[in-house]
């Protein structure tokens, strides 16, 4: 199905363009079935860890973002890491915030930096200072 979407005129940004822009951010693509999987690093502040990220994207779908290394940690209490899904991927936006007409490199990547900043703040302070909604 995705393969047909890939060639359909869905009005979004094509994979070559997405890949080109991600490459400029240092993210290398690999192709798995009909998806592109990018691996690259993000460091939100100079005193932060350097995180290796995996971003899976199927043309027209919602990017799926996972922190590979260092693995995400909780605070040792009952609270789960805020703004994550049960599969461990991180939740950067509401569905209406993102559309396939946007560049992953210009939206998802800045949001990843932002998320990682608040994640490190949360580890330090126990409060998620970045706002958002959890359902």
């Amino acid at each position, binding site marked *: 199905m995705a393969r047909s979407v890939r060639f359909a005129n869905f009005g979004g940004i094509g994979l070559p363009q997405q890949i080109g822009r991600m490459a400029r951010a240092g993210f290398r693509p690999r192709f798995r079935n009909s998806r592109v999987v990018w691996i690259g690093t993000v460091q939100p502040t100079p005193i932060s*860890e350097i995180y290796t990220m995996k971003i899976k994207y199927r043309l027209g779908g919602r990017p799926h973002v996972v922190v590979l290394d260092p693995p995400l940690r909780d605070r040792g209490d009952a609270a789960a890491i805020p703004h994550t*899904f049960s599969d461990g991927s991180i*939740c950067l936006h509401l569905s209406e915030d993102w559309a396939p007409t946007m560049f992953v490199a210009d939206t998802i990547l*800045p949001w990843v*930096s932002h998320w990682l900043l608040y994640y490190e703040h949360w580890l330090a302070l126990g409060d998620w200072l970045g706002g958002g909604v959890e359902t």
Partner: protein
Amino acid sequence: MAVAPALLFTRSPESYLDNLLMRICVALQLGDALHEAADGSYQQVAAYLESHPTVAPLRPAIHPQGSMRLGTTVMPCFGEEYDLDFVCELARDARAFAKPVDALRLIDAALRENPRYAPMLQTKNRCIRLKYARKFHLDVLPACKDAERGGTCILVPDRELSAWVPSNPRGYADWFDGRARQLLAPYAMDKEQKLPEPERAEEKSPLKLAVQLMKRNRDVRARGVARPQPVSIVLTTLAALSYRGERSVSGAMNSIIRNICEMIPPRSTRANRLVVLNPTNKNEDLSERWSRDGLAYQQFLDWAADFRSAWNALLALRGIDKVTRALETMFGEHIAHKALQSQAADFGEARERNAIGTTRGTGLIAAVGTGFVTPIPRHTFHGQKRQVR
């Protein structure tokens, strides 16, 4: 004196850490409200003594001394009070007093006459202490000009010794300011008549910030330990001697802690100890206590070694949470959290203004308008509310 440093966008971990350290220093200083209250109280006491019938003829000149004058005040641990020192210099020869303690009694009696000050007053060895309800006390040290030594030298009455003791707080402050101003643009300073104006943390000399951090680390480390800790004047002097004009707190701290450790003789004990002389009076050994109290000297050695290793470890840490944990251990949990919270609040505010973005290639958060910075589009973090266990 609480003026937070601007958010700093940099690729350098040291500069980024500096921003947090400056926020720690801001949190350690007298807050704006307390600074204003202390300034008001000081002005009132000064005006009262200057117009008091028995004190006024001696033309008292009252000015801040110690950390208040140097800009190195540090919030006390455990709900103790800020200790604010003032010299009340009398234009009278010390020998005109029959006994040194008479100078103390003169100021004591004058303040005691005032129904407002009488209940707040405590008599100390070298000063009269006024305890205010608002987290600070003012120590008023009477003094006479030291005609023999001249310059800014004064004589201070010591009740227990029943003697006049030489001192030179203004000379010391001028020396310290000179050390603090190395490589920095000189600025006019007349701090004698009022409390020093609040200084923005990034405009404050890195030496002053480093002294605050060292004193704070000593206090935090001393919690629950009954042993004698290195005194502020010794730490302040060592820091000022070791400072080489670095422009950043972390640079200053690197240099200071390394130089202090190098000043300590190898295999140092009480017998071959470090001697810290008063830079304005080389006859005065500020560290004199160490020659008779080996334990006090050992405490200093331990402090210096521990501070050096904690500092070096801090520089190598990555992860804001790990850095914060280290700052908690070094400077206290409350202060470290306050510093990080204030930095986080500034990030939030910058984000609201769409003023921050991320740097292409690294993901570092930076100011929009600088090179290769992608603005952060509006978004709302989402997710499932879950419990780990």
